């Protein structure tokens, strides 16, 4: 029943996005090598009232993460060169307090990867789930 409650809250915040943006403009970093997927996610999160930074690979993501006052990270798992688990490990070393939401196209990630992050979800579960989980991560701050 808690899920239903949060779901409606997110829907509401999505509906009057303009107000929300002014109220809590948390800075979120999205890392994904999928061009279209990243672009769509950015638009989606901006509509939901977040300020969004993007990076298309691990090293860029880590550089932005260090330089900007990022408040949450939405991280893709499968990327060339450096996968999400490695990036999460390094982010934890830089700013351990920043929550990380791991996205994966694979079903059933290994526990040693999922234990590194605050929350994780499978891609394709839909925008409401993404916004809900991001909301949970940022709740203590807002």
């Amino acid at each position, binding site marked *: 029943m808690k899920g239903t409650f949060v779901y409606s809250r997110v829907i509401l915040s999505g*509906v009057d996005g303009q107000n929300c943006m002014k109220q809590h403009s948390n800075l979120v970093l999205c890392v994904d090598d999928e061009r*279209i997927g990243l672009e*769509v996610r950015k638009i989606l999160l901006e*509509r939901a009232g977040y300020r969004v930074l993007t990076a298309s690979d691990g090293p860029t993501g880590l550089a932005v993460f260090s330089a900007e006052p990022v408040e949450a990270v939405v991280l893709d798992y499968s990327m060339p060169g450096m996968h999400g688990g490695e990036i999460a490990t390094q982010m934890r070393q830089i700013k351990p307090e920043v929550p990380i939401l791991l*996205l994966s*196209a*694979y079903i059933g990630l290994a526990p040693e990867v999922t234990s590194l992050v605050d929350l994780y979800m499978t*891609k394709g579960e*839909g*925008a409401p789930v993404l916004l809900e989980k991001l909301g949970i991560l940022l709740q203590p701050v807002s």
Partner: protein
Amino acid sequence: MNLSQFNNILRQVFVLPVVALLVVAGALYFQIRGSNETVNLIQESDARISQATLLSKLVVDEESGLRGYETTGDTRFLQPFYEAESHLQTEIQNLDNLAGADADQKHDIADLRDEHQTWQDAFALPVIATVRGGGQTNDVDLNLHGKVLMDNVRHDLDDIIQKAEASRTRRIARWHRQVHSLLLVLLALALGMGVLIGLFTRSRLHAVSAAYRGSLDILSRRAEELYQSEQQLRTTLESIGDGVITCDAEGRIQMMNPVASELTGWSQPEAGGHQLEDVFRIVDETTREPVETPVAKVMRLDKIVGMANHHTILLRKDGTELDISDSGAPIRDKSGNTIGIVLVFRDITMERKTQEALIANEKLAVAGRLAATIAHEIHNPLDSVTNLIYLMRNGATPEESVRFMDMAQQELTRVTQISRAMLGLYRESKAPVVVDLKETLEEILLLMERRLHDLGVTVSTDMPEPVEVSAFPAELRQVFTNLVTNAAEAAGPGGEIKISITPQTAGIDGSGQKLQAGATVTIADNGPGIPEDVQPHLFQPFFTTKGENGTGLGLWVSRGIINKHGGTICVTSDTGDTDHGTKVGVFLATNPTINAGGGD
């Protein structure tokens, strides 16, 4: 001890007595020569005595003749006197000439000659002259004088004879001593040589007998070893897991081990002496035609026929059947003639089933890996599309909607492609169909794009035009997916893979080999290459260089599939510093003869 040493000893044992006896003979010769000389001297003394005796007789003759004449005045009595006188000088000279005289004896002879001359001149000749003149000669003084003179002569002669006899006695004594010493020497030599020969022969015989004992030892040890090795062989044959049958050169069964009895259903006593073909009846798996036994093949080719699965079935005595693989090898004697043949065979029914299970297992492993890839490939576009729909549903401007729909369309196109490629991979067909290799490879690369991207590998292709071959598409996809995966994992981040298709027209190549029409797909990577010691194992099942991440079945199954397609697969690799990498070539014929059994 070898034969030449033994002959040497024989020679020594023969030569030594001969040499020893020669030495003895030499010593005896010197001894005998010494006594011979003594005998000569004795004879000489004898000659001297008889010569002196002859002289005495002549002197007596002379004196008697003179006395007769003196008495009678008849000159006929003088004849013996003259005769004796005429001989006397010669005989005295003869005595003087006899060898071995010492100075004393020479002096005696000279005396004799003088005394006789004196008697002749001072008595005999004057008496003769007186008688002839008619005078008297019976005067006592005259005759006494004659007698004194004659006594001197006789005395000389007696001296000579006495001395000769004394000398003869000495010489005989010497000869006795010599003979005695000869006997002693003979005895000593005989004893010495006997002991020498005895000792020598004994030592030689010791050597021979030691060698003989050594040979006996060696022989008994060899016999023991032979027995042990025979036992080992027998136990090995009985414990071995394969069926073993030995035949003579004519192919009659001599021996079979328990496994062979069990597999054929014939016991050793039943089968012994039978022709192999009666006991080991094998037919082709598909045609059911009798197959040449390895023994017949060995007899025909006169060389080893290796263990192989020729898809043969063994018909057992009770009519049941077994899948077997078999091999044969000739048994040769020292000069290389075939004196028998060994047949080794095994039941591979379980092996075949295991192989089939492994092939299915590998297919599942490939499917599993692909499923993960596909999930990824579908979830990414799906995520974008659901997000886009959410955005449009929650109030987007018409311009935004158009843009969002375009983006959604792009992502859906990608899903469609993936889905098509995936369906192609799992579409099983009963008969070979025409497959475009270019299309197949492009689809596989599309499916693997993500994986290759993740690995940081770039792929370049050289596939100028469609190339069609008759094949089972799903199986070819399995092979190429496998090979591209291997290449990508070998190349590693930053590596490159080159995929090319080279069509081949039918013809004859440089070495006269007939070439089929078809194409070779080459997949080359620039990874570190495969070390030479690893290369022979590449196509073995369960051989993997990927540790936990590999099944070790990929190349083994791939080769099975390619062999089934009547094609060939070969791996060339270079681990050099500058020009390293691995190249896998797969030849597929345009219209191949499909081996239903799957090859190997």
